[in-house]
């Protein structure tokens, strides 16, 4: 089985599982995502480099799960034909709608706590 690799060597990594049909399109079933921290302190970006460019455009969703399998965050990802790297730009935590009244700094405290439970990610077709 081929594996996914990352071009960033020193950062946190998140195990990645790729679901059935998407695994065929990406040419892999499992690998790792690089967790790229943002200077702003918000949720990081997740980055993945494939061994081969994709042959068709793909819309996929990356979900980050806690150890008990609960998805805690997600991000849609668009890949165009020929892309070899995908990256999440808008990672969103689930069930944060009740915190819209909080100032950004307080929301970030909650986000950091929830994000601390990240255990693995699953990519599936959107």
């Amino acid at each position, binding site marked *: 089985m081929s594996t996914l690799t990352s071009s960033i060597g020193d950062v946190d990594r998140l195990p990645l599982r790729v679901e059935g049909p998407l695994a065929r399109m990406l040419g892999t079933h499992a690998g790792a995502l690089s967790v790229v921290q943002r200077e702003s302190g918000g949720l990081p970006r997740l980055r993945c480099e494939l061994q081969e460019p994709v042959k068709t455009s793909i819309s996929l969703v990356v979900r980050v799960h806690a150890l008990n399998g609960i998805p805690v965050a997600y991000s849609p990802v668009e890949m165009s034909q020929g892309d070899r790297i995908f990256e999440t730009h808008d990672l969103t935590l689930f069930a944060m709608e009740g915190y819209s009244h909080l100032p950004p700094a307080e929301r970030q405290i909650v986000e950091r706590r*929830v994000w601390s439970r990240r255990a693995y990610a699953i990519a599936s077709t959107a």
Partner: protein
Amino acid sequence: MLSVVCGRVALTRSHRPLRTAGALPSNVNTMLRPLSKAPVYFIARQTGALRPRPLNLTFSVTYRCNAKCRTCNVWKKRVDDLTLDEYKAVFDDLGSSLYWATFSGGEPFIRPDLIDIVVACYDRCRPGMITIPTNGLFGKRILEGVARLSRHARDSKIIINFSLDGIGSRHDELRGVPGNFVKLRDVYRQLKAAAHPNVTVGIHSVVSQFNVKEVSALRHYVREEFRPDSFITEVAEERLELDTIGLDITPAADDYAKVVEDLLMDMDTTPGRGVATLVQAFRRRYYQIAHRTLKEHRQVLPCYAGLASAQIAPNGDVWTCCTRAESMGNLRATGFNFMKVWTSNRADELRRSIRRGECFCPLANAAYSSMLCDPPSIVRVGLRWLTSQVRQANAPVTETIGEAAR
């Protein structure tokens, strides 16, 4: 042996005459009514082709809460709660499919229109069971509301569960409300004394890493001082709904194992009668599953959340369960058309994820529905219930001793 006999003495005080093993009491039949739908849910889960309406729905009517528990952050959340009229539209759409309706929160009684919402549900859906958990702080509202509900919803079994996590000031400390214990105890006693015929008054304890070593004492205290119609415990979990992810509230599996051991021993020494034995058989199975889930980190019981059970968030989002709290869709956005949300692609996707066993948790509410739909669980629970019935039918001497001792 003496303790066993004593246990039976204590238990026989409110008991009806000895029943033979063959006859099912009517309330057992009521309990087993949802079983007739179980094959449909089983097939639905196996094939993914059917999407029957859920038999068990939890309506979280608000996130607002006047307690600040160490095991819950829900009181910090704010959303635009569904109104009474919006709930009526939801109930109209649900119709009579609902068997078990739970009205939770936050603190559900913080809403002055809570009983109006429950009455609207009863009028439109006629659920067999209505459960309302409460922290007991809205004394007058609880007592008057439950009395009104009891008079109105005569065909439903109403279960009021008071949340108690510690004894005296320890409870206040865990719940973040000075004086909570005393207020709860007073309201509890008044509600018990009211003896509404279709109302069960229970105690519900959250077992967290903060109180797991005190549960044994709490259990004894509750049994002696409160004498509830039911005593249930639930593991404090990291749930998205309650914003407890990352809070380290879940007890260690080994510590929880001791709690389960004690609870099972209680059931052995104080067996119920009639419907109580059936409830105990389900509860016993639940505690075993909850412990194994914590220990084995996998979906021990095939989960039927998103099929047989679901939750509606205060803002109208429909969730498979409160642990995942992922929206299948929003009822406001679909004109309160529940089935439009229930049959959406997103709902199917979430069901597939659950069916694949991607998540696991010991959530009690979903577990009881799942047990009803899971053939091995039904066989186990059924066998245990039959065994207990046969034992009781063949043990009149113990009963006589118990009756005489009174």
